[in-house]
């Protein structure tokens, strides 16, 4: 099929079928657009790069992008999930045949809610130190443990879970990866209140919950590898989703916003304020320029070390912008709540900056990664590297 034929087919199909769909407002949970998504899936547009057997059309990347651009033009959602659907990609790559048949179509249509069950209270920076255990029983596994920092667990049908299935080997080697059914006795989801007074996350208490045999992804004990591919998907999907302010335009913390706040506060003629505002805006711009350069260099085939710096840079930007906003507001920053949106923004930003500087690997872990993977500095001696995890636990 030529590009033109493909374009014509997609356009015609959209013209015949697309009548709009409800907006998705929650990032997690069952998708209100499920009916439309099922239609897209059944027509083969959901994951056009995938083989026909898996609801796709086996298109090349270039052709798939044509499909995506037709959908984008029509403002219709649902295509390109072969790039963007974390859950479906992970399942397709690693699930058992039986389970894949069941779950992939549901995931493509957004018919099931999903969540991530990775971090634990005792395993944050050191994720491989998880202690949630999955013990083999007739027909599946019994799971007991506790997970934290889970988004959407209260509306999820399945959780992508890492749990320890072998305690006699070093920590990375005894982990397995599952799709755990969430709606069962033994899974208790509680909201986790953040320092920002929001509850975007849950704690999940798992007490003798059951996972059927076929819900194992990858090999038993090979969960760390599955996790790495899932995390890579997640990174490429989520991009840089650091949020700024709470009230008003959440992503509006560009250059103009801070300058505008300084002007509003009557402090734009203050030479100290000008230096501070200039520096924060400069860091934002430098981060954008770095990203742009990284992409350009990747295209030119030269390797780019710059990509990894974004999160660390953003962490400094957010903390420093919180400080400058606070300084700009003076006593007003003592307040919070809907009647004081500028103070709310400054305080929220100051606290939520930790979402970036701690979440998804602290700044400290990030510097380790940059030092070791980008600058090729030697790793630290790892005391638990070659030790059976049960011995590490006993050594506490």
């Amino acid at each position, binding site marked *: 099929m030529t590009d033109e034929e493909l374009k014509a087919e997609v356009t015609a199909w959209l013209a015949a079928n697309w009548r709009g769909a409800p907006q998705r407002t929650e990032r997690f949970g069952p998708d209100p657009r499920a009916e439309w998504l099922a239609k897209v899936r059944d027509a083969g547009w959901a994951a056009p790069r995938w083989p026909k057997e898996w609801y796709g059309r086996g298109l090349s990347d270039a052709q798939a992008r044509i499909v995506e651009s037709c959908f984008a033009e029509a403002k219709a959602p649902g295509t390109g999930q072969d790039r963007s659907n974390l859950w479906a990609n992970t399942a397709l790559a690693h699930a058992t045949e039986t389970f894949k048949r069941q779950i992939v179509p549901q995931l493509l249509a957004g018919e099931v809610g999903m969540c991530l069950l990775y*971090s634990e*209270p*005792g*395993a*944050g*920076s*050191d994720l491989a*130190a998880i202690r949630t255990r999955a013990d083999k029983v007739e027909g599946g596994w019994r799971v007991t443990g506790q997970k*934290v*920092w889970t988004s959407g667990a209260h509306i999820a049908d399945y959780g992508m879970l890492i749990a320890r299935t072998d305690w006699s080997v070093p920590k990375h080697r005894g982990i397995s990866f599952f799709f755990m059914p969430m709606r069962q006795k033994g899974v208790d989801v509680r909201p*986790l*209140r*953040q*320092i920002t*007074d929001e509850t975007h996350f849950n704690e999940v208490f798992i007490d003798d919950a059951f996972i059927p045999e076929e819900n194992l992804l990858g090999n038993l004990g090979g969960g760390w590898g599955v996790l790495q591919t899932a995390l890579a998907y997640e990174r490429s999907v989520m991009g840089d989703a650091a949020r700024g302010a709470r009230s008003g335009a959440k992503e509006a913390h560009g250059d103009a916003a801070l300058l505008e706040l300084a002007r509003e506060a009557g402090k734009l003629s203050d030479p*100290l304020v000008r230096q501070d505002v200039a520096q924060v805006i400069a860091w934002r711009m430098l981060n954008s320029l770095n990203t742009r350069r990284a992409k350009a260099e990747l295209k030119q085939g030269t390797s780019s070390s710059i990509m990894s710096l974004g999160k660390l840079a953003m962490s400094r930007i957010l*903390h420093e912008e919180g400080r400058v906003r*606070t*300084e700009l507001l*003076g*006593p007003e*920053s*003592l*307040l*919070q*709540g809907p*009647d*004081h949106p500028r*103070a709310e923004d400054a*305080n929220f930003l*100051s*606290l939520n900056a*930790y*979402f970036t*500087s*701690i*979440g998804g690997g*602290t*700044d*400290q872990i990030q*510097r*380790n990664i940059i030092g070791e993977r980008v600058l090729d500095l030697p790793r630290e001696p*790892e*005391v*638990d590297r070659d*030790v059976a995890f049960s011995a*590490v636990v006993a*050594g*506490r």
Partner: protein
Amino acid sequence: MTRAQRRPWERDACMTQVMTHEERTALRDSVRRLLADRCAETDVRRVMASDTGHDDALWRELAGLGVAGMLVSEDNGGSGLGPVELELVMEEFGAALSSAPMISTAMAAMLLDGARAQALAAGELIVAVAPLGVHDWTGQSDVRVAGGRAEGVARFVPDGQIADLVLLAGDDGVYAVARDAFSATSLPVFDRTRRLADLHIDGPVERICDGSRVAGALAVGLLALAGDQAGGARRVLEFTVDYARERRQFGRAIGSFQAIKHMAADLLLEAESATSAARNAAEQLAGDAADRDGALALAAFACADAYVRCAKDGVQMHGGIAFTWEHPAHLYLRRARSGAQLFGDSRHWRERFIQALEAQS
């Protein structure tokens, strides 16, 4: 305050006799014990959630220990102590996140005499102080006093929401505003351990002393805040270091990693410097020293900055656990942030500090 103006702890004959080191330690320990018992984290959270943000029963008990009347002369039923003891006690208040109206009370003690001072010392009278005119650190108060009446709004007044009496403290005099001549709007504050109110004043006032006492009251307020900050900074560092010793990742206590260990070392320098600054300001104030203004200004910004940094880095060093509401780290961060604005920000006090240096050179 003018050099000639004597403060309560100087006016009183027995006050020339400073407390011994042992007596001070005993006072501090008794406050510490009471707060450990009655101002534990659960109490702090309970008071944070309350309407008034005030634990009156605890305040009466603190008054019983002589804390409320610390700067009130013994003639007036107070303990007749001075800035050094105030600062020491405030370190405990700061460490415990106490919302007791101690800063307001210390300031009021510098302005009140007689029966009101007595009621203040007994913990029966809560007095808020609103600095006006050149002393208005908010830049937003607009109370005018004329012909025995006052009218206007005093903004961001600490403890205003529970005040029985308000003192308007301006250069031209100090005026008492009785309960029926003002109404308080409790402000929705980011730091719920330090309540503030806008006071809408409209009614008769009583002139209680001239303006020469105001600077002394403000100095005491600033010192009390500095003590609170030094105590808070040390406490947040303390529990952060405790956590770093216990919390294990990668098979090791996280405090064994240089990233954490070195942050802790830097914070120790901050917290100890803040403590030195606050205690030095207390001594200078007590001794009526020549560089008192500089010492106070130094304490103001050194303590504010140190507390913010310790509280901020403390959250980072904890990692995810400190991103939860139920962990106390953010309570300290909120308190550090509110203290860094109260009575003027660090930039203001650095400017005042260099002014003091210029005056000396």
